[in-house]
């Protein structure tokens, strides 16, 4: 992104606003140029329409993303929702209690249980989910017939667009107590099986659902990386006597490595978010021992138990740690020479 102060378009030279630019080549209009400093007022007059266009989005973001940050003060309050039916008024009148909420949280075994579940889920998802899109992409990429490719991709992308409610409903119909699997087992003289409510295998169930929903979608970025490998690399390797597998090892996989590394890093940055909606929908089925994660802990204590200060404190802890993780992950991405989510 350039810090350009030149007219953003050469056509501007023709508008009544006098621009001190003598010659602008049309394509170079975005490049940095030495001459052509405009005063702030002129630039504002020139760009006011553009700024106006971004205004609705900026307003929405300010109100719904930035303004609530201030609301985190309830984490330091003994927030009483019954003072007024307006949350902001209640915040203004609630007494401050310092770090009391945080103290309570750190002594709460339910919180540590949620932390533990979150981390276990994150690790299991990382190990069991992450390799699958890579393998699927390699598989699809090795298919030469365009029709087979197109159909397979269309089918595999589809579940990404289903809601979590639907995905879980589908799983329940397949693996629940009254589902297809139990039905088949019973018809063959075995006992039915209810995988949906088994706390011991809950983490694997969650992962299986994520795989079903999103593994197909995840192949897009790998397919793009594979498509950008120059064909002559393969040819050169073949000339040197590399067989199919050696070409995969020495040409294909190195091409995927930067993408894999970047996605891994970004996933780690998002470690504390392990699928809020998905888990919230199934939390009651398996009990909080297995099914409570940080996000559902916040939801339960705040929305359900109306213990807003406590829940906000837990959310704040999660938020702060998450920002740290994201920044660290991006730092690592930059150190690896990748672009990360934002530029350096």
């Amino acid at each position, binding site marked *: 992104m350039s810090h350009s102060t*030149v007219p953003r378009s050469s056509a501007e030279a023709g508008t009544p606003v006098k621009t001190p630019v003598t010659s602008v080549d049309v394509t170079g209009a975005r490049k940095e140029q030495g001459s052509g400093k405009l005063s702030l007022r002129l630039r504002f007059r020139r760009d006011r329409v553009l700024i106006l266009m*971004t205004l609705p989005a900026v307003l*929405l973001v300010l109100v719904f993303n930035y303004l609530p940050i201030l609301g985190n003060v309830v984490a330091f309050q003994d927030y009483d929702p019954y003072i007024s039916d307006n949350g902001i008024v209640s915040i203004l009148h609630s007494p401050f209690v310092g770090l009391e909420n945080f103290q309570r949280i750190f002594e709460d075994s339910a919180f540590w249980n949620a932390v533990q579940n979150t981390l276990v889920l994150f690790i299991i998802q990382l190990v069991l989910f992450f390799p699958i899109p890579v393998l699927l992409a390699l598989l699809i990429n090795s298919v030469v017939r365009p029709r087979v490719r197109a159909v397979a991709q269309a*089918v595999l992308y589809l579940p990404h667009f289903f809601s979590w409610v639907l995905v879980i409903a589908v799983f329940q*119909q*397949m693996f629940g107590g009254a589902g297809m699997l139990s039905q088949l087992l019973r018809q063959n003289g075995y006992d039915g099986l209810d995988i949906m409510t088994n706390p011991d295998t809950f983490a694997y169930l969650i992962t299986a659902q994520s795989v079903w929903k999103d593994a197909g979608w995840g192949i897009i970025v790998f397919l793009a990386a594979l498509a950008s490998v120059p064909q002559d690399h393969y040819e050169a390797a073949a000339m040197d006597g590399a067989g199919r597998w050696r070409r995969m090892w020495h040409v294909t996989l190195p091409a995927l490595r930067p993408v894999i590394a970047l996605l891994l890093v970004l996933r780690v940055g998002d470690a504390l978010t392990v699928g809020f909606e998905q888990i919230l929908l199934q939390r009651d089925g398996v009990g909080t021992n297995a099914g409570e994660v940080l996000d559902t802990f916040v939801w339960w204590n705040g929305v359900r138990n109306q213990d807003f200060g406590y829940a*906000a404190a837990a959310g704040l802890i999660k938020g702060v740690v998450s920002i740290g993780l994201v920044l660290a992950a991006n730092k690592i991405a930059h150190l690896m020479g990748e672009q990360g989510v*934002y530029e350096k």
Partner: protein
Amino acid sequence: MWESRQDTEPAQRKAPHRWAAPPRPAWEEEPSKAGLAGKGLALTIACLAVVFPLWIVIVTSLSSRKTIDEAGGLVMVPKGITFIAYRELLNGGQVTRAAIISILVTLVGTLFSMAVSVLCAYGLSRVGSLAHRWILMVLLATMFFSAGLIPTYLLVQSLGLTDSYLALILPSALSVFNILVLRSFFMGISQELIDAARIDGAGDFRVLWQIVMPLSRAVLAVITLFYAVGYWSAWFNASLYLNDQDMMPLQNVMIQLVQRQEAPVGLSQAIRTGQLSGLAIQMAVMVMALLPVAVLSPFVQKHFKKGMLTGAVKG
């Protein structure tokens, strides 16, 4: 004999079908039979894992009570197709209302999100304009933090959005990621074209409407689908901010119906009298939820890759 000779004549050979496999490069080995079979099997299993459950859901939703009883639950082979479950659901009861609510919220929400996003993306795509870096930073930063569930909940409630459909649209109306995708696509449009339009006297709105948007149909389609799917799939905001059962969208009704196994209001009668299977009702609601998405997404699919990559890992 004569025919086979004809086949070898280049002029007589049919042009390869557009779905036919492209010619193999000379240096590549012929695939082994076992390799091909293994690949085919793996791909078939992966696709069946997606299709099979959907097949079961659709077939069961179309089955009569008798068929379902005979199968002992879910039906795999269609027999005696009946639309009774759908007819009951669309009879004007709770599910009909929920479906209409979902459709309206999706339409209005998508339109709103697209309007705001396209405007913002265009405003930010003219690099070098005043404050564009600052505005970009303000938007980008939101990708790294979330204010938290509780403060957001208190804010939405303070704004008086509780029990209003605005609560389903406004708090999650924008995806910064989508704006970035649109923006980088707009930035790729040739500057000459835009300059030419401006020389002809077109303002920014006109350039956006008559030059930029027609050239960006593919990416607009993708982002519209993303937003629409987001609204269609959402249930959490409704469960947070709506108290009135009659206002609930389809996904929330589906939770009650399929997860908690509660019969929809007004339908328990039909189920009890025995002509209707509760299972078919559940399946029919699931089909209603998946149908629009399954019908629409294949049309937009060929543009996914482009859309995903132009905006993906780019400031």
